[in-house]
Every structure is written in structure tokens, then in C-alpha cells.
């Protein structure tokens, strides 16, 4: 264990964990839009920045992204200094200019007292804040179907050649993980569409209810060695089947 001070309170943190985890365990609310436990920290949104210092630093202070900074013995962390708040406000103000219609951004900005951006709204703005969560989760899952395209202010997230991505299996993880709900998809129970690619959903042979996409199941069968049979019925039918099997065994026991 490592001893650190967060906002004046002495707390213990686990060796190797990032400051953000320790801060959140203390129920201190700091925003972090590009952070998700499933992927490596990235440090793009800069909202989780905090002030750090140590007694032996002679008053020298540093500002770091807490999602990326590992805890250190004796670290003194302040999550809401005037400078840190000013920085968060500026970042949210900038986000509000680049994604003026995002409800998530609007709400978060309002929490910091900003209702309208003080900057020029970016033309052709979208709700995408380029946090990179979608591409990172897609990489982590092993598909790498989408990526960042271009750079700088013109950067966007897209499939290769901006065509329906061949490597996408329609798992929707990107859409789920997107902090601003920018990634759109449709799912009518038979068919799913995301990134312009259409997927057929597997259906339970017993109930007819949809499960995952055919492509996703095929991937799990091939790369994760899940038996093909498992995907024939849905979870409800699996449970019913199990109950009936165990019921049969119990019944044999009763009869014996």
C-alpha cells in the first residue's frame, strides 16, 4: 500500500494504480471523458487533471492527468484547486465549441457553470470529442475495425476508406463506450447496422429471440474456441434446458 493525501485526507492506495482510481474511491467527482477501465489510459480529454506536490518538492507543484499518473508514496493531490477548476472550465468551454449539441457535454459544462461557449462554434461540429475510446476498445477486442483518420483539427473516427468496415463484427462496444453517444446504430431485432455495415442477428432456435451477430459468434467460435452449439439458443432457453436436465436427474433419483 502507498500513502497519499487527497484534498487534505490521508488515504491508502494500491501500488501501481493510477491516481484517478484512488480519487474515485474517495467518492470525489472529477470528470474523465476518455477513461474506461477496459482500456489503457490515454490522457486525451485532460479533464481529470489534478495538482500534485510532495513535501520534499519545496513548494513546486505539477499538474498531471490523474488517469495516467501512478500513485507514489507521499504524494499530495488536490483535485479542485482554482487553477484546476479553471483548466476544466476552459476545456469544457472548448468542447462546447466543438460539440455544441452534445447533451453530455452541455450537462458537464453546466456543472462547471458554463452554459454557452465563449469561443467561436466550430463549423460542421459533431458530438464526437475524439476521446479515442471507440478505437481503443475495438483494438483491445481484437477487431481494429475503425481508427482515427487524419490529424489535428480535422481528425475524425472512421472505418478504413470510409467504407463499411470489413473487420467489424457489430458487437456495438464502440457505441456503448462512446461517452457522448455519438456513434449511431440501428437494431430491429433481425438486422443491425453500424458504421454503414449490415449484420444479421443470430436467433434462438426455441424462442426466436435475437442474440449476437452471426459475425461476432463466428469470431468467438474461431478465436475463442466456444463450441458452435452454444450459440444455437439464447440464455433463457439455455436456463430452461438446464432446469429440465437437472429435473430429469432429480426425478430419476426420486424414482430410484
Amino acid at each position: 500500500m502507498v500513502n497519499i493525501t487527497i484534498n487534505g485526507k490521508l488515504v491508502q492506495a494500491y501500488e501501481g494504480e493510477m491516481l484517478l482510481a484512488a480519487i474515485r474511491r474517495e467518492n470525489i467527482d472529477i470528470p474523465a471523458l476518455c477513461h474506461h477501465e477496459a482500456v489503457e489510459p490515454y490522457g486525451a480529454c485532460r479533464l481529470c487533471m489534478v495538482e500534485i506536490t510532495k513535501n520534499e518538492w519545496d513548494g513546486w507543484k505539477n499538474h498531471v492527468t490523474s488517469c495516467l499518473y501512478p500513485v507514489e508514496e507521499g504524494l499530495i493531490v488536490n483535485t479542485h484547486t482554482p487553477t484546476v477548476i479553471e483548466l476544466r472550465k476552459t476545456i469544457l468551454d472548448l468542447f462546447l465549441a466543438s460539440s455544441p449539441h452534445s447533451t453530455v457535454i452541455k450537462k458537464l459544462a453546466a456543472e462547471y457553470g458554463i452554459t454557452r461557449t465563449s469561443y467561436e462554434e466550430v463549423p460542421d461540429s459533431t458530438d464526437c470529442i475524439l476521446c479515442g475510446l471507440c478505437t481503443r476498445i475495438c483494438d483491445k477486442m481484437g477487431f481494429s475495425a475503425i481508427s482515427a483518420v487524419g490529424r489535428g483539427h480535422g481528425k475524425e473516427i472512421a472505418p478504413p476508406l470510409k467504407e463499411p468496415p470489413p473487420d467489424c463484427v457489430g458487437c456495438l462496444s464502440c457505441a456503448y463506450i462512446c461517452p457522448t453517444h455519438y456513434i449511431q446504430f440501428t437494431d430491429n431485432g433481425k438486422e443491425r447496422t453500424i458504421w454503414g455495415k449490415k449484420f444479421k442477428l443470430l436467433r434462438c432456435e426455441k424462442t426466436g429471440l435475437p442474440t449476437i451477430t452471426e459475425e461476432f459468434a463466428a469470431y468467438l467460435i474461431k478465436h475463442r474456441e466456444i463450441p458452435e452449439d452454444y450459440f444455437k439458443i439464447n440464455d433463457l432457453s439455455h436456463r430452461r434446458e438446464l432446469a429440465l436436465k437437472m429435473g430429469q436427474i432429480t426425478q430419476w433419483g426420486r424414482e430410484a
Partner: protein
Amino acid sequence: MKQDFTTIPSIIARHPRKASSLIMILQDIQKEFNYLPEEAMRKTAETLEVPMSKVYSVATFYNAFSLVPRGEKLIRVCVGTACHIRGSKVIREQFENELKIKPGETTPDMKYSLEVVGCVGACAMAPVVMINDKYFGSVKTSRIKQLVGKG
């Protein structure tokens, strides 16, 4: 410009078959075809076992790559600091007017492409224009018609 894609595998084969060769392969392809044909990017992804999305990401991140065919003559107007204060903006505009295209575009006859570049490292001769691999220093607006003609 070559449209014979059969050379692609041999270009890729010049480099070690590992992910770190990606940029170098794309550079060689760009040199050969003047742009990155889709097929070449796919073949590269396949050979190096790198996801196509990564190839596309790299291809769009770096200035050196073009996803559309470029003209026979690539005119690069240097807009580095030294060139900027010695009037490269006017030079760029004169090329735009002369060729009737904007930077990043190619004339419909595929003869010229116009680009601006951060600095070509010939700052002492500012303003500088590069036409294909040739440098032209101390460029004056009056020389632009002539430069378009040669190069």
C-alpha cells in the same frame, strides 16, 4: 503515372515483414504510383498482418501520403517562416491563379498538383518552390508562369 499494380508485392517484399515496416512500404508505394492506391494499402495490410484501419490511419496522418492520384508535376510552395515573411503567400496565390487549383488539388488534366509544405530547408533562398525534386530559390511572382512551364 503507373497503373500497373502487379509491382505491389515486390515493393512490399523489399522490406522486412513486420509492422514497423508500414511507413517505409507506404513511402515506396507513394513514390512508385504518386499516390496510395487502395489495392496497395490492402495488400500491405494483408502482408504485414496489420489491420487495414491502421494502414488507413497512418496513410491519412502523414502529409507525405496522398490517397488520390497526383499530377505529373508536384509543385510544392514552401510556407516556412523564412518564406512566409519573404512573401510566400503571394507566391502561393499566384500558383493558385495560374493553375486554377487550391493547395491539395490536382489539375483536371493530371499535369499539376499544388501543395504547400511547412519548410523544405532551403530557408536562405526564401521564398522557395519545389517542383518534383528540384528546388527554385528567391522566387518572384513574375517567374511563376515560367516555373509552371518548366520544372
